[in-house]
């Protein structure tokens, strides 16, 4: 995704909560930490000098623990929260400079949102909830109904149109939230811990639905989570946030293989690396021995299974055009999953 165009660019964004945020700005720029600001000046540092390029048509995950500022960050993209200072550029427009009407149109047509606790309208049925965004856009009732019905079906809720949210399980409610967001046809989808309130099994289910839909929709998705497994699973790009600052950005592989500091290393040490590392990261110079041909983007875990099942003890790695570009032996695969020292190879990527 490294060479794709940027859809959302956040520049020099600061958010300070308190009575005199502007006054505190100089202090923060001068290096006052979040704790100092809190203890000595009674202001809370929400976000500090955020610079982030979010690629078009990809899933950008913003990961951080509670209090890291991730929910504050996503709310700046559609300006549910006003920044202290900064810029958010989307398609050549600065969201933070839009007037009220432009901003409303932007929210109606270009960015929709899915919420952690669903935020459905309890007095409306599934159908009426899904229609909500279209109704605000002013779409004719009949068209809106058809469009909503399509998305209800796509998220697997056909047959539940007339139910109220209170009658559905959490997972089903969030499907309604997803259908409501997708129905407006916005190309930016903001997901604020959208799956965090769900049971682990349902969460995996929802992740699959999202990934399946994304394969055909190619929306620009900003996904907030506190769960690294989730971040690695669905993210094309990950930004890790701590105390209101981005401390590392990169692909899932880069985060797992080259954690920038001990804080991130601590996060990543329990991760199943076989599900993150791709063959191209560990492959060696091609040889003539036989083996199944596997894509360079295939995950180590999947490859290990295929190689084990095949008669040979290695796989031939192919690129997009089908040419063999390298080989991986079964030992390489096992070593990769067992935390070998492969950082040096990543350099070559």
């Amino acid at each position, binding site marked *: 995704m490294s060479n794709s165009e940027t859809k959302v660019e956040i520049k020099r964004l600061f958010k300070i909560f308190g009575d005199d945020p502007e006054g505190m700005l100089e202090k923060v720029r001068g290096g006052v930490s979040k704790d100092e600001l809190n203890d000595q000046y009674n202001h809370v540092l929400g976000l500090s000098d955020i610079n982030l390029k979010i690629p078009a048509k990809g899933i950008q995950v913003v990961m951080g623990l509670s209090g890291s500022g991730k929910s504050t960050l996503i709310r700046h993209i559609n300006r549910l929260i006003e920044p202290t200072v900064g810029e958010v550029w989307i398609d050549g427009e600065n969201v933070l400079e839009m007037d009220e009407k432009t901003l409303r149109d932007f929210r109606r047509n270009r960015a929709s*949102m899915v*919420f952690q606790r669903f935020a459905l309208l309890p007095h409306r049925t599934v159908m009426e909830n899904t229609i909500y965004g279209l109704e605000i856009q002013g779409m004719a009732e009949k068209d809106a109904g058809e469009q909503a019905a399509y998305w209800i079906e796509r998220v697997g809720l056909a047959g539940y149109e007339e139910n109220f949210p209170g009658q559905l399980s959490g997972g089903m409610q969030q499907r309604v939230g997803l259908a409501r967001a997708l129905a407006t046809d916005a190309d930016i989808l903001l997901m604020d811990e959208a799956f965090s309130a769900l049971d682990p099994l349902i969460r995996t289910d929802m992740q699959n639905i999202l990934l399946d839909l994304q394969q055909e929709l190619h929306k620009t998705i900003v996904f907030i989570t506190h769960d690294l497994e989730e971040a690695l699973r669905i993210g094309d790009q990950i930004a890790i946030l701590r105390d209101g600052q981005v401390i590392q950005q990169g692909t899932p592989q880069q985060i797992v293989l080259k954690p920038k500091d001990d804080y991130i290393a601590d996060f990543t040490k329990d991760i199943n690396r076989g599900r993150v590392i791709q063959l191209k990261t560990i492959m060696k110079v091609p040889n003539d021995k036989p083996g199944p041909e596997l894509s360079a983007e295939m995950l180590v875990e999947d490859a290990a299974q295929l190689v084990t099942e095949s008669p040979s003890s290695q796989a031939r790695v192919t690129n997009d055009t089908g040419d063999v570009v390298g080989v991986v032996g079964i030992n390489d695969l096992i070593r990769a999953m067992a935390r070998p020292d492969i950082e040096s190879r990543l350099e070559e990527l």
Partner: protein
Amino acid sequence: MDWLTEFPELGRRDLRDFRKSIDQGFKDFTRTYGEDIESFFEPLLQFLIWLEKLLLATPWPVFILVVAALGWVASRSLKVVIGSALSLFLIGFLGMWEDTMSTVSIIVVCTMLCVGLGLPVGIVMSRSDRAQAVVTPILDIMQTIPSFVYLIPVVMLLGIGKVPGLIAVVIYAIPPMIRLTNLGIRLVDKEVLEAADAFGASPWQKLVRVQIPLALPNIFAGVNQTIMMSLAMVVIASMIGVTGLGQPVLKAISNQYLAMGLLNGLAIVALAIIFDRISQSYGKRLQSHRGGHDE
């Protein structure tokens, strides 16, 4: 040490002049604007009289049937339906039908006024903390000031009759409507409101499609309270010429007619219970979508 035991009050003459000037000022106001104000309320009076005549002209079985049907629609409970029909029949049987119709008509008009005025005020209050800070003490005054005190200027301005009675009832009965509208809207889930914002809802779209619908159970509790309080005001309003069940009660007080007072008083109670059950069960049914949670 006189100043310690004697309160430093205004001189008797000054005090009299002070009161006199207020009285005179209000009298002048009445003389200048009284007629305009009266004609302003004329349509209201006509409507009230029309409604009262309509109710009196309605055959009694029809009225009982309508109330029973309303009870069924609102509550789906046979107990409410039978209870309402039976108590209405009993009221008529004991010779209080006409007074009851008068009272019902004034309660209906009063409730309409309270909702019509209270809802917008409540909405304004919920949208601005400053409005809330201004209106709340006024509501406190309206609820605590003895009714007789504001009956005086109302009567001075409009004389004795239905309209001043109506105004007195509205002053007394409107505060819960305003308070509960305000409360209901303020209690609407912040996350749902944020979602409305995120989808680009305008303030009006938010109010009409999210805030009011979600505040409806509270708003309905306000309507219910307003009805109850206007019924409670019926006796006092009858002192300034409002016809209905209050007048026999008043007569019974001055003549010590125990049975008369008791019967009419109980008729008011019966009406109150009918109105209450019907409006409350409707309010509850408005929340039915919150039920059925199977978690």
